[in-house]
């Protein structure tokens, strides 16, 4: 009989241990009256940690933050729709935010500090506000350029040079927001038919389509490919990390850009703290913090100083990138591209 008691004890203890673990998580949430904030962050880890520390110091609000990719955050918000755990989505390209708005995952909030941000960098109805802008361009490996005796690519057409055959890398537009921005840029620049024909020609030059948008910069930096199509601020960052052979250039025909955004999650806890965070992150101080952590995007607040590392690309010619068109045609366009290049 004592044997059976033992087993029952064992089973019970397993159940209780599980309950305890679950309970522990629950108990922590029971906090004092202090304001708290949970946020999902699509930026770099160190940028996040630093900003959170600074924000806590300024406001006394206790923050827990976790970094994920845009797609992960969106998936998480969808799954948590009925009882959101986070109240802020901070960082990551605006097309994710546009999608979240369409899915009814965001709450309107127009911060008083958003007034001076240009209209093209924020949602007309106030569902999200732009915080930074990143330009699309080319990163090249200087050593490899010299080896192949070819000059720095200066236009979209330059990428079709025979010297670059099998030496260009861009991410797969089906999986990467960066690469999709490039595809949408080409189509907006040349029109659909010509644009897809260009992508087909470019496909002959591509070494590989990695899955993540940051991979081309890394591959070029480590000499795995000669030219990569990526956001230029990533290129600057990799160079700062020690990939010294990286050189930047931008297409003369004009290029697209991403707008990074911040938004409030619908029905999230701690709304009051969330609003405080958005107000704070839009200020000059809140926007400039990223530079110390190696985020070199341009900033949406006209008062905030652009990172000096990005000075070399500040005069890049931009197209009038149509965010909502790009967002609405994503699936169709990616499929047309897949058909055209058979990838």
């Amino acid at each position, binding site marked *: 009989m004592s044997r059976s008691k033992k087993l029952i004890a064992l089973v019970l203890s397993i159940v209780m241990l*599980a309950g305890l673990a679950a309970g522990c998580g629950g108990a922590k949430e029971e906090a004092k009256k202090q304001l708290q904030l949970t946020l999902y962050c699509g930026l770099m880890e160190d940028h996040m940690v630093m900003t959170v520390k600074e924000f806590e110091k300024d406001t006394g609000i206790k923050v827990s933050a976790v970094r994920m990719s845009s797609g*992960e955050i969106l998936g998480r918000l969808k799954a948590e729709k009925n009882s959101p755990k986070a109240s802020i989505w901070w960082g990551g390209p605006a097309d994710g935010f546009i999608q979240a708005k369409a899915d009814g995952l965001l709450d309107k909030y127009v911060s008083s500090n958003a007034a001076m941000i240009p209209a093209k960098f924020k949602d007309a109805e106030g569902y999200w506000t732009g915080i930074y802008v990143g330009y699309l361009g080319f990163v090249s490996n200087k050593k490899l350029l010299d080896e192949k005796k070819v000059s720095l690519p200066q236009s979209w057409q330059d990428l079709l040079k025979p010297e670059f055959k099998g030496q260009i890398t861009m991410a797969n537009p089906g999986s990467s927001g960066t690469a999709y921005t490039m595809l949408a840029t080409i189509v907006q620049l040349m029109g659909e038919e010509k644009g897809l024909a260009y992508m087909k020609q470019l496909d002959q030059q591509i070494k590989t389509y990695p899955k993540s948008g940051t991979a081309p910069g890394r591959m070029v930096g480590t000499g795995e490919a000669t030219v990569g199509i990526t956001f230029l601020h990533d290129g600057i960052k990799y160079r700062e990390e020690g990939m010294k052979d990286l050189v930047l250039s931008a297409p003369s025909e004009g290029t697209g850009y991403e707008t990074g955004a911040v938004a409030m999650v619908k029905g999230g806890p701690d709304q009051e703290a969330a609003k405080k965070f958005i107000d704070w992150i839009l200020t000059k101080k809140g926007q400039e913090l990223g530079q110390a952590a190696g985020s070199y995007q341009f900033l949406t607040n006209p008062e905030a100083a652009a990172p000096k590392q990005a000075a070399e690309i500040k005069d890049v010619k931009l197209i009038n990138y149509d965010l909502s068109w790009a967002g609405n045609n994503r699936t169709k366009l990616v499929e047309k591209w897949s058909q055209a290049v058979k990838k």
Partner: protein
Amino acid sequence: MSLIQPQIDDMKKIARDPILLATIITVLISLLLFIVWPLYEVLKEGFLTDQGAPTLRYYQDAFRRSENIRVLGNTMYNGLFVSLVSTAIGFLFAYTDAFIKIRAKKLFNLLAILPIVSPPFALSMSFIMLFGQRGFVTHTLLGIKDADIYGFLGLSIVQILTFFPTAYLVLAGLLRQIDPALEEAARNMGASRWHIFKTVVFPLLKPGIANSFLLVFIQTVADFGNAMVIGGNFTTLAAQVYLQAMGNYDIKGGTALATVLLSISVFMFVLQKYWVGSGSYVTVTGKPSRQRQLNEDFIVRLTVGTPCFLISLFIVILYILIPYGSFVNLWGIDFTPTLKHYQYIWALGMKPIIDTTYLSLLSMPLTGILGMIIAFLITRKRFIGRGMIEFTSLLSMAIPGTVIGMGYVLAYNDPPLVLTGTAAIIIFSFIFRNMPVGIRAGVASLQQIDPAIEEAAQDLGANTFKVFTSVTIPLIKSAFFSGLIYSFVRSMTAVSAVIFLVSASYNLLTVAIMSQVDVGRLGVAAAYSTVLIIIVLVVTGILKFLLSKMGTTTSLDM
């Protein structure tokens, strides 16, 4: 009527044994809760529109895409290739370990285990450093200008190195169980070693070979970390599921693809059951009674030992690159020694390191015990629902991590069970994802042990609990402890499922490594990986030490 009569008899027997009944019910409920339910949530997601109307649209969309058909072919091709080669290599190592006299055996063992300890992407990254366009071997040594290892070949090699230890573990556990007395009897009757291998040893290994093939196949088709880093244009289904759900913001399309992936794994599983069939693989004595006389034939030692040695050497080189990369400025470009990556980790905080270790340690015993109980129930008991227990418990490994992760979030975000953002959700995902290895090891060992031993105990009046603790467990101890260690290591290095479960209160090392690779801080990623490997080696070392104090071995010697 007569058809269900035996089942009714079985159930009557079970009903007379309340402990057994309670255990079965507990196991069933936990499997339903933590595997079936999240899976159901995911399946539901793919068949319902946002408004909740049933639809097949997402499946039609998924298969209208030409790309996905190609991806399906890639997945099968890659899975079969990696499984075949990994099983062969795992067998080679296991055989060397059990039958051949080689001095470097301890080293082989350690190295065969290392890839399991490998943090995500680490091997892919080292591999690119060696064989990429600027790779040390391809560019510096061989002077190849435009080497391209991205794609099927690079991915398959890395996966083989990562997964052959799984095969090795399964087979080594089995080989140790075979009693040399059988072989000696055959030898005394004049059979050659080769003949003995064919007629005595190999038939006993069949279930293990089938199991290891299946395990590796399932791991390969579900592996998304390496596929993301080194797959290039060769996309497999696991990566495609992730890309569809996370990259394209199309969760429903992703779940549709995931269901296809799941069907492949289930199909493999069913195939394996019929292939191994219901043959008996029993060595009547139960446990080996003494040491085997090892083969000292020089030619054999050379032919079997050389490939083991070469593979081990290759793994060593790949692993040396990881800590080396964490102490230089930038791996492959700037080799100035530095400690800055470790300072950076220190500045970011030790939380992910502590969290990961703590949660993995906590889930380890739970995984091991549950795994053994299930193995025991599957092989030794007959009751209604047994097939379901076996099927679901092993299925959990076949579910791609991204999908089960998403399922967990969908299932445990609303009452009755609110677990999102807690430690519990991570622990449960560890338990139910790592359990199958323990179960398989347990089942494989139990299949070799004659149930008569346990029946004898039962005849003498022991109840199920008594039989399990004092007869069964001692017989399958080594499988149990291997399962323990394996589950700890897998928890430490798991990435695909937990990406979805980390929260502001619990962050994990692997996820930190991924984001560091993503932003190009390869040195920091290498430093994190080094820390992770050290923790794993220290913990498993302590475990082994404690076990040796208790006079037990595992089926892996580190």
